[in-house]
C-alpha cells in the first residue's frame, strides 16, 4: 500500500477490473510485492498465524452455532449432543475451544515480540494501539464464548466477571443489570452473550484490516530495530515471507492438533462438564488460563484506599481491584510514550533486555498466582508481582530510556546481515534478491 504499485494487469478482464475496482492490485501490493525486511526471524510469523486462527475460529464457530441452542435449560445438552451425535461434531467443537486457547498463545507471543523489538515506537504507535484494541476485543469474545456451554465454570465465571461492573460508583448496578438482562446471570444473559459472541469476531476482523493497513504504511520492524533504508534491505513478501509464514503456520497447527486430538481437555476446566447450577458454587472459581494474570491483579488489591488518619474511604478494595485489573490492560495503550528510548530492538539495549525477561517471567508467575486461592502466602506474592508489573511500565521503561547506554547499532539491515553472514561464513550474498523472484 505504501510506495508505488508494481502490479500490471495482463488479461483483458484484469485491465477492465483494475480501472474500476482495483482489488487484485490491492492484494498484489499487500501480499505479493509488499517489501519486508530480509532479516525477519520466526517471531515475526505470529501475525500471520493470528490471522489464520481468527479465520479458523470464525469458520468452526459458524458451524457449531448451527447445532447450538442459546437457552438456559438446553444449552449444555446441545453442546454435548453436538460432540456425541453430529458427524465431526467432536472435532469441530474441540477445535473451536482449543483454538481459542491457541489464539491467546499466539497473541501473547505476538505482543511479547512487540515489546522486545520495540515495535510500538514511532511511527508504529497506531499499529500498536489497534493491536491492544484487538486484544481487548479478543478477551471480551473469549469470555462470552466461555459462558455459552453453560457449565458450572461458565456460569460462575460470568457471575464473577459481571460483578466487576457493579464496583463502578453510582451507575455500577445499573450497568450490570443491562449486561445481564436481569438481576442475576440467567437465560437473558445467555442470549445476549450469544449474540455478542457472534458479533465481536467480525469486529475483530475489521480492526485487523486497519491493523494490517497501518502495518503496510509504516512497514515492519526487524530484529536490528534499524529502519529500512534501501532496496537492498527488503525482499518481496512473496515468495519469501509467504513460504516462511506457511511453514510456521503448519508447525503451529501441529501443536494445536496435538491438543485437539489427544488432550482436548487439558486447556479447559473439568467443572465445565457439570451443567450450570445456580445453587451450587464450585469450590474455586477460576477463569480460563489466559485471564489468570489479570485475575491475580484483581485479587491483589484487598485493601481500601482512603485519606490517611481518617475513616474516609475513597476507593474500596473491590473498586480498587477492578481499577487495577483494567489498568493492567490500559497501561499497554501508553507503552509507546512510556518507553523513552529511541533504540527499538532490545538486542541493542542490554539493560532493557534484562528487565524484559524479568517482566516476562513475572507475567507468567502472575498467571500462576491467578490460579491460587487468595489466602496465606499467595496474597503478598500477588501484591509483589502486581507491583512489579506496573513498576516495569510506569517507572522502569521511562527511566531506562534516559539512563541506559545502548550498544552500537549496525548502519543498515543489509550491513547487519552481511556482517553476520561473513562471521558465520556460510551463506552467499546476493543484492539482487531485492527484485521479486517470481513474476505474477
Amino acid at each position, binding site marked *: 500500500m505504501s510506495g508505488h504499485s508494481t502490479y500490471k494487469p495482463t488479461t483483458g478482464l484484469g485491465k477492465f477490473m483494475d480501472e474500476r475496482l482495483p482489488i487484485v492490485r490491492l492484494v498484489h501490493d499487500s501480499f505479493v510485492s509488499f517489501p519486508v525486511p530480509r532479516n525477519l526471524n520466526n517471531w515475526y510469523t505470529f501475525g500471520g498465524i493470528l490471522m489464520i486462527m481468527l479465520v479458523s475460529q470464525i469458520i468452526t464457530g459458524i458451524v457449531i452455532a448451527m447445532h447450538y441452542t442459546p437457552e438456559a435449560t438446553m444449552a449444555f445438552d446441545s453442546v454435548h449432543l453436538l460432540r456425541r451425535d453430529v458427524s465431526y461434531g467432536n472435532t469441530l467443537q474441540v477445535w473451536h475451544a482449543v483454538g481459542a486457547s491457541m489464539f491467546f498463545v499466539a497473541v501473547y507471543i505476538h505482543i511479547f515480540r512487540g515489546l522486545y523489538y520495540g515495535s510500538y515506537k514511532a511511527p508504529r504507535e497506531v499499529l500498536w494501539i489497534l493491536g491492544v484494541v484487538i486484544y481487548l476485543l479478543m478477551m471480551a469474545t473469549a469470555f462470552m464464548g466461555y459462558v455459552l456451554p453453560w457449565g458450572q465454570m461458565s456460569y460462575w465465571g460470568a457471575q464473577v466477571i459481571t460483578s466487576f461492573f457493579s464496583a463502578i460508583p453510582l451507575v455500577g448496578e445499573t450497568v450490570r443489570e443491562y449486561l445481564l438482562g436481569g438481576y442475576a446471570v440467567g437465560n437473558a444473559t445467555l442470549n445476549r452473550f450469544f449474540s455478542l459472541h457472534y458479533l465481536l469476531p467480525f469486529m475483530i476482523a475489521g480492526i485487523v484490516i486497519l491493523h494490517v493497513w497501518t502495518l503496510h504504511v509504516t512497514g515492519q520492524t526487524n530484529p536490528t530495530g534499524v529502519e529500512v533504508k534501501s532496496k537492498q534491505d527488503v525482499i518481496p513478501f512473496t*515468495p519469501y515471507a509467504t*513460504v516462511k509464514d506457511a511453514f510456521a503456520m503448519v508447525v503451529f497447527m501441529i501443536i494445536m492438533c496435538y491438543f485437539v486430538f489427544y488432550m482436548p*481437555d487439558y486447556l479447559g476446566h473439568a467443572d465445565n462438564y457439570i451443567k450450570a447450577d445456580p445453587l451450587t458454587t464450585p469450590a474455586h472459581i*477460576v477463569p*480460563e488460563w489466559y485471564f*489468570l494474570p489479570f485475575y491475580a491483579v484483581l485479587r491483589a488489591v484487598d485493601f481500601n484506599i482512603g485519606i490517611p488518619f481518617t475513616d474516609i474511604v475513597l476507593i474500596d478494595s473491590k473498586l480498587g481491584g477492578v481499577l487495577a485489573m483494567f489498568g493492567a490492560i490500559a497501561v499497554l495503550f501508553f507503552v509507546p510514550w512510556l518507553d523513552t528510548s529511541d533504540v527499538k530492538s532490545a538486542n541493542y539495549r542490554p539493560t532493557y533486555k534484562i528487565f524484559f525477561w524479568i517482566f516476562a517471567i513475572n507475567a507468567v508467575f502472575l498467571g500462576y498466582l491467578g490460579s491460587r486461592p487468595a489466602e496465606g502466602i499467595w496474597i503478598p506474592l500477588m501484591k509483589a508481582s502486581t507491583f512489579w508489573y506496573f513498576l516495569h511500565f510506569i517507572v522502569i521503561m521511562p527511566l531506562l530510556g534516559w539512563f541506559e547506554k545502548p550498544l552500537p547499532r549496525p548502519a543498515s539491515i543489509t550491513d547487519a546481515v552481511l556482517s553476520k553472514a561473513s562471521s558465520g561464513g556460510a551463506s552467499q*550474498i546476493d543484492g539482487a534478491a531485492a527484485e521479486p523472484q517470481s513474476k505474477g
Partner: protein
Amino acid sequence: MKTVFKKFTTMISAAVMASGLALLGTSAASAAGYPLEKPREQDWTFSGPFGYYDKAQLQRGLKVYVEVCAACHSMNLLSYRNLGDLGYTDAQIKNFAAEYEVTDGPNDDGEMFERPAMPTDRFVGPYANDKEAAAANNGALPPDFTLLAKARAPERGFPTFIFDIFTMYAENGADYIYSLLTGYQDAPEGVDVGELYYNPYFAAGNALAMANPLSEDLVEFDDGTASTVEQQAKDITAFMMWAADPNLPQRKQRGFIVILFLVIFAGLLYFTKKKVWSDVAH
C-alpha cells in the same frame, strides 16, 4: 538453517509452556487440600495415542452399572442405540431397551401413555427428577454418570502438569473414579464423619454420602472374569469413560492421520523455504 530450527524448538517450547499455564487454571487449589490422597494411576486401554475401548470390559461395566449403580445414578445423555459401540447387535439393544418403560404421548385421545423404551430413547433414570433423587439419598444428589468421568480432575501440581503434556496424560478422571471406588476405609481415630462414609480420595471432603457400592462377587460377569472389587471398579470406570467420551478412539485415529499429514506437509514446506531463501543472506 540449523539456527532456524533451533529457534523453532524454542518457539514450540514457549508455546507449550504458555499452554501449560492452562492446567494451573484447570487445577486451582482444591479446597482445604482435598482430596487427601491423589488418585492412583492405572493402566487404561484408552490412554496414549492409540487408545481404544475394550468391548468386553465395557460390557462388564454396563452390567455393573445396570445391576448396582443404576439404582441411584442416571445417564441422561446416553441413548440405548449407543450400546452398539459395546458390540451388541440391534436385536440385543432392542430387547435391552424394552425392559424399561418410558412415558410418551399425548396420543390421539390427548392422553400420555407408557410404552417400552426403544433404541432411540435416552437411558431411563432411577428417579423422576433431581429433587426426588436427592430426597431419596438424604439430601445428597447422586450425580449423572454421562460426563462424570470428565468432570473430576484433582490438581496435578507443579511440575507434573507440565510433564503431563508430554506423557499425554488425560486419564485423571478415570483414575479418580477408580481410586474413589476402591478407596473406602475406616475413618482414622478422632475423625468423625457423621452419617457419611470416609474416603480419602473424595474430591470435596474426607467423606461422602455414598456408601461403598461394590463388594466381592456382587456382579457375576458373563465372560467368567473373576468379580473382585478391583475388577468391578475398573470395568465400571472404563464404561463411564466411554459414556463421557464415546468418540475417543476415532478422535485419536483421526489425530494420528491429521498430524502425520501436517508433519509431511511441514517437511515439504521446510525444504521449499530453504530453497527459496537460499539466494538471500538473512
